[in-house]
């Protein structure tokens, strides 16, 4: 890729270094701790699924029992291993019996750590094997069917009813969509569990459940075969059940996950510690499953001024990158987010948008950048919105974005209807085809508006990151440096789910994943 912005490599290096320091600080916070969500995730990966009579998911039932006994610092794996050894049953059978009141998981004979690990081993292997199979299946599909040209066209479905979602998703794929995300119901991110089964009633989106994942995956595989393109499936790996969703996604072959290091903190007021721990394990799972994560920098521009706050997007991309690499994600899995959110009334706004997008492209050359459409300044003027979406699509193709989340002409009105999506896809296909090689064709005036803007944003990001490296990320977040939202380390939801590990704590999946992977070269 040709460099067009005359950015100083030295500044990029400085920014990356500062972000590395920041990430190291976060990892230090994470290592000695676990969370209820992480523990539930271990159970899920061991094969525990289903709900009890009160509709409470079995992973929650088991973890709550252990937490009530204040025994979570040893980790759920410890207790489950003991139960397996004692009963000879599978984790799922054990969990069911715990839920039915037939087994007290806290009241199991003691075994050596070695025995416990050995007892878990076949279940751990089975879980990981399943994920690796899904990964291979995806690779096979990509080989045989392939994907559309870049930028890939990403659309959302959000009817609230998984069966309607499938119809809408298949229609979208027939129109040319490459990626389908099922948006979650408004309520879900604050649930400290994952709902169960197929669901038909959500608000502003559809619940993320393992069964819903399965139903949609099957639908997309079907239509993918028909249209001769592999259709990526996306969901939200965030909220209080973040790592569980990572596990479900890995098991059901999702391909991308919205999975940001700070989104929950800022936009859902989830406790910071909780989030950092959860996101780390989530990302390990995503990394292992070959899932591309989508980070959420776009969101800053919905609450902060998109012009003034442009550098916070870049700074956050660096942080997400450094944290991601440290969780075992590869560069190719880092779908760093950014957005086209400047006021359409701004003179030369398009130049500034192109500057920002091109800058991201040059600074993160291997990342499958995810480019988010205009939302905040969109009104119910569907004609205008369609047009602004067109300029966004143009910026996307000109700057070589990889993942283009398509704007909808009804952005300010409702979650997309079937034809909204079709019009959006037609918009993108037209613009991207009609200006396919424009990016190869043009260069920017040295010292012109585009170059200057990119340089300025980089400068500001370097400054911001170096300050944060000094202060630490929690302090920066407390002071509202991202999205203009301030959150304190002790505030927010879910702190009670954070647990200090005991010495004998272990997470067999984390260990196995870490040992299997080669540390990404850039992580130190």
């Amino acid at each position, binding site marked *: 890729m040709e460099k067009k912005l005359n950015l100083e490599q030295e500044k990029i290096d400085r920014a990356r270094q500062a972000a590395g320091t920041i990430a190291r600080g976060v990892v230090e916070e994470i290592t000695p701790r676990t969370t209820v969500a992480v523990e539930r995730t271990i159970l899920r990966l061991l094969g525990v699924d289903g709900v009890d009579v009160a509709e409470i998911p079995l992973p929650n039932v088991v973890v709550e029992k252990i937490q009530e006994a204040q025994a979570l610092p040893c980790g759920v794996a410890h207790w489950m291993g003991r139960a397996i050894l004692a009963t000879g049953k599978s984790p799922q059978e054990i969990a069911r019996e715990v839920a039915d009141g037939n087994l007290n998981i806290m009241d199991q004979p003691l075994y050596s750590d070695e025995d416990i690990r050995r007892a878990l081993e076949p279940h751990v292997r089975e879980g990981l094997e399943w994920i690796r199979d899904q990964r291979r299946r995806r690779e096979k599909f990509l080989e045989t069917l392939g994907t559309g040209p870049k930028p890939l066209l990403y659309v959302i479905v959000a009817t609230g009813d998984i069966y309607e979602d499938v119809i809408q998703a298949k*229609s979208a794929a027939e129109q040319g969509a490459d990626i389908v995300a099922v948006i979650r119901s408004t309520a879900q991110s604050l649930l400290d569990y994952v709902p169960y089964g197929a669901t038909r*009633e959500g608000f502003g989106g559809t619940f993320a459940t393992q069964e819903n994942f399965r139903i949609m995956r099957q639908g997309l595989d079907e239509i993918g075969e028909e249209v001769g393109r592999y259709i990526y499936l996306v969901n939200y790996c965030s909220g209080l059940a973040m790592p569980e969703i990572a596990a479900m996604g890995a098991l059901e072959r999702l391909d991308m996950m919205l999975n940001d290091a700070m989104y929950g903190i800022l936009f859902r007021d989830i406790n910071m510690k909780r989030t950092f721990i959860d996101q780390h394990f989530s990302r390990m799972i995503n990394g292992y499953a070959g899932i591309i994560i989508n980070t959420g920098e776009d969101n800053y521009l919905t*609450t902060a001024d998109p012009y003034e706050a442009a550098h916070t997007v870049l700074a956050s991309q660096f942080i997400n990158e450094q944290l991601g690499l440290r969780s075992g994600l590869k560069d190719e899995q880092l779908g760093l987010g950014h957005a086209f959110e400047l006021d359409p009334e701004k003179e030369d706004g398009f130049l500034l948008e192109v500057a920002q997008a091109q800058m991201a492209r040059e600074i993160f050359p291997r990342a499958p950048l995810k480019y988010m459409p205009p939302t905040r300044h969109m009104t119910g003027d569907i004609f205008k919105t369609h047009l602004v979406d067109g300029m966004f699509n143009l910026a996307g193709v000109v700057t070589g974005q990889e993942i283009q989340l398509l704007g909808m002409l009804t952005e300010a009105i409702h979650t997309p209807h*079937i*034809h909204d999506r079709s019009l959006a896809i037609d918009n993108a296909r037209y613009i991207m085809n009609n200006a396919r090689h424009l990016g190869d064709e043009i260069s920017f005036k040295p010292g012109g508006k585009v170059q200057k803007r990119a340089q300025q944003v980089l400068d500001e990001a370097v400054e911001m990151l170096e300050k944060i490296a000094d202060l630490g990320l929690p302090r920066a977040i407390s002071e509202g440096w991202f999205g203009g939202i301030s959150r304190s380390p002790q505030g927010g939801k879910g702190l009670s789910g954070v647990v200090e590990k005991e010495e004998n704590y272990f997470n067999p999946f984390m260990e196995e994943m870490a040992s299997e992977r080669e540390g990404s070269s850039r992580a130190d």
Partner: protein
Amino acid sequence: MQIDEKRIRAYGDTFNDGIVQVSFSLPVEHGPKGDEAARILAGQMGLEDAEVAFSRDLGQSFSFYIVYGRCPAYVDLTQIQVSQVEVEAMDYYEINRFIEERIGRPLVVVGACTGTDAHTVGLDAIMNMKGYAGEYGLERYPQFHAYNLGSQVPNADLISRAVEVEADVILVSQVVTQKNVHLENLTNLVELLEAEGLREKFLLIVGGPRISHEMALELGFDAGFGPGTLPPEVATYVAQEIYRRQRSDSGKPGQ
């Protein structure tokens, strides 16, 4: 061109031509039969000379239509009453002075995005220091004590907080409207307040991009504010309404 205000029809390029554009999808295969179905449906909307200007296959046996036709219906403009919050324009300084002089104490306001709604930008626009479109938010007014509880606040929490701080006013923001979730949410709030005998203690205000004053009144609120609302509009309404109630009730609300 003399317009008959009693018979206002849609206008394309000639008075009373009644031209309207309609678009929709049908769960029907794309093709002549679908086009005809679209034409008939437009006919049932009362359109004359309806023509399908464009149709598009959506896959999965769905299809999309753009139809133009003439709508013979008309509206009697003279009969239209728009119920709007009536506020004489006061500015930041006037409002503060008004409260100070006529009410004699700062007003306490509690605001939240309720239910599962996490869209804080609208509420922040009204409440936060920096405000919106160049106008300060309530937090900046010396004569308001404003508590912004943020997003996804359960109705019950909002009420107990309002009681706790002895609020005069409750501000609710609702942005997500899919499947009418906002209506449920708002109705539930009023019911809870009434059940606890607290409804009359507060001036109850709702805002959001799909909120109108009329709808707010129907739901049992005192006022509703729609898209583009500016903080001084809300502040003026609050100040004047509380003053009015004070005078007419001879008892202060919210105390």
